[in-house]
């Protein structure tokens, strides 16, 4: 059982404050959707509105074509995994999982069968008789997922379910969630502020900021062709390099000029870019370290971050502008060196003051 979810012109106010403003989104059946955004962007509120834990102030939400925004949470056919897991502390794991089914009068043998199946999938048959207080964080997380699975819901909602786990467990659970999605073939909506979770899990990412959707797209679309400057800056680590530039669009493609007169050719078509102030954007991996004088511009190395498989080189240009470049893991660059920076024009982006983005022509 799976479902498509239609969100039409939804808005939400808390008192005088608008948290979501006329937001529309359609989620296909079996899709893994991630709501990604900074704290307070409204992503959790949107999820809770789908769950029925928050009222919908404007617009409508439909599952499989049927409006559900007036239904109580239990009648929507969805299951949710909370950040804090929200297990019932006085019930055993088995009772935690059975509670929802008991309440709607599912037969005992059906309940037992579903619990056994969920416990098998999540490898936790030995935990069934324990209480949440006797479980580790990762085990509680499994129980919370198990409690959702036994309901056989039309859609799973996850509200930052990995943020209370330690780093190693988070990575493992992430992979397990991806496997679970493949196995159950259910619609899943996952809220996170962690872009790695979003990139690794999502079929499509919904990037949200400041009450609105900034962009909806596949992880690579979001990464390679961010729709706005916000998306470009929010997705990717380290954040994209931004430089205020003057543009020359006399040619076929745009040429940008830094404040220190460095000229960089790009592969962005001139005819679409509108006038105004512009910001040039390029990711660290698209800035190569070159011998002094052989790049587009020279910079002095301020900080080195050695990540193992690559080295992030934080350089300062003559006008004080910081540019982060990516070099090989065994880079010989040292702090204080002057290095050349070679920008890859084919991977560069241009933004105007409203945040609108232009990208290099597709190869």
């Amino acid at each position, binding site marked *: 059982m799976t479902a498509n979810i239609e969100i039409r012109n939804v808005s939400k106010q808390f008192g005088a404050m608008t948290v979501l403003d006329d937001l529309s989104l359609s989620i296909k059946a079996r899709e893994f959707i991630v709501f990604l955004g900074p704290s307070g962007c409204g992503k959790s509120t949107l999820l809770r509105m789908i*769950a*029925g*834990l928050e009222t919908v102030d404007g617009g409508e939400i439909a599952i499989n074509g049927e409006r559900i925004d007036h239904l*109580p*949470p*239990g*009648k929507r056919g*969805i*299951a*949710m995994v*909370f950040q*804090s897991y*929200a*297990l*019932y*502390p*006085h*019930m055993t794991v088995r009772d935690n999982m059975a*509670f*929802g089914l008991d*309440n*709607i009068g599912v037969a005992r043998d059906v309940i037992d069968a579903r619990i056994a199946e969920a416990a098998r999938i999540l490898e936790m048959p030995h935990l069934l008789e324990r209480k949440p207080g006797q479980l580790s964080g990762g085990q509680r997380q499994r129980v919370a997922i198990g*409690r959702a699975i036994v*309901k056989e819901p039309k859609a799973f909602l996850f509200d930052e379910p990995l943020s209370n786990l330690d780093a190693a467990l988070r990575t493992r659970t992430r992979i397990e969630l991806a496997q679970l999605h493949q196995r159950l073939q259910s619609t899943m909506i996952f809220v996170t502020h962690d872009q790695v979770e979003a990139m690794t899990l999502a079929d499509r990412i919904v990037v949200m900021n400041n009450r609105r959707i900034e962009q909806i797209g596949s992880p690579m679309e979001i990464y390679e062709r961010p729709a706005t400057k916000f998306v470009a800056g929010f997705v990717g680590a380290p954040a994209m390099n931004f430089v205020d530039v003057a543009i020359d669009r006399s040619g076929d493609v745009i040429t940008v000029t830094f404040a220190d007169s460095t000229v960089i050719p790009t592969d962005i078509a001139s005819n679409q870019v509108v006038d105004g102030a512009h910001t040039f954007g390029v990711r660290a991996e698209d800035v190569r370290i070159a011998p002094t004088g052989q790049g587009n511009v020279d910079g002095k190395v301020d900080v080195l971050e050695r990540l193992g498989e690559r080295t992030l080189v934080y350089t300062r240009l003559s006008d004080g502008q910081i540019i982060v470049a990516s070099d090989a893991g065994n880079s010989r660059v040292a702090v204080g060196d002057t290095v050349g920076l070679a920008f890859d024009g084919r991977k560069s982006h241009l933004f105007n003051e409203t945040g609108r983005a232009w990208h290099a022509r597709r190869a």
Partner: protein
Amino acid sequence: MADQLTIRETAAPAVGVRVPSANIYAPQWRNFVFVAPFLFFFTTLLIFPLFWGMWLSVHKADTFSTGRFVGLDNYVRLFHDKVFLQSVWNTFYFVLLTVPTLALIGLFLALCLNRRTRTAAVLRTLFFSSSVLSVTIVTLIWRIVYIPNVGLLSTIYGWFGATAPAFISDPSLAMIGIAIATIWWCIGLPMMLFLSALQQIPQDIYEAAALDNANRWQTLRSITLPSIKRTFILVIIIQIVLQFQLFGQAWLMTRGGPNNLTKPIVLYIYDTAFRRWDLGMGAAASEMLFVLILIAAMAQYLVTRNKGDQA
């Protein structure tokens, strides 16, 4: 080379003598000064009288002299005194009337008033406000309510052409009358304890229950009540200890009457020790009350704890 240097440096103060590192958990006896004033009053006003009472209960004593050791004579006399046995029964009856009612009404009020509305806040204050009154005021209010012919109860019954029950003079109703006044007086504390317990329950459990299709009754039974079980036990124990000590209301409303039917143990102790000046027997009765409260509270605690473990 560097290692040797370090060793020499650290060993410098006293060669061969191990300097213990400071233990931040070591007792600091000068801190005793801070608890000494409390300890002094606790010992002189509670611990010392406790043992003095035990000592008195095995002696023949009046206000003018403490006489000879009489062993368990005071206790034997006590258990042959019909008035004492009546007062024990009265006290149990009173505890049975008040404690469950206080717990249930307190829980009910807390469930109703556990919301963030102005009305709820006002009602919380109102229900708690009776707790700050002194027993004198409380009994005065309820005597006015109960007065035959002109009291509030009589007036209300009069509107319907009925006669109000005689809560103070009717032997079968007198204790119930005292219990009603007591419940009205004491309801604030259980309500507040339940309210604080309810507010400790994480909101997301309720959200999970809503997603689990739990209706209000299922939520109350499966989520709320198990979550406040400990507070329920606490309220019961506190109330048992408090209500076993019934004195003021009975003394001021009925003087223990009619026919000793509302005379609680504490009033019996007061009568025996300070009106008949039989201090030894009064002390013996006090020890019995002490044991009764202890047993009742312990039994309550053990019973509920065992149930909890099995669940």
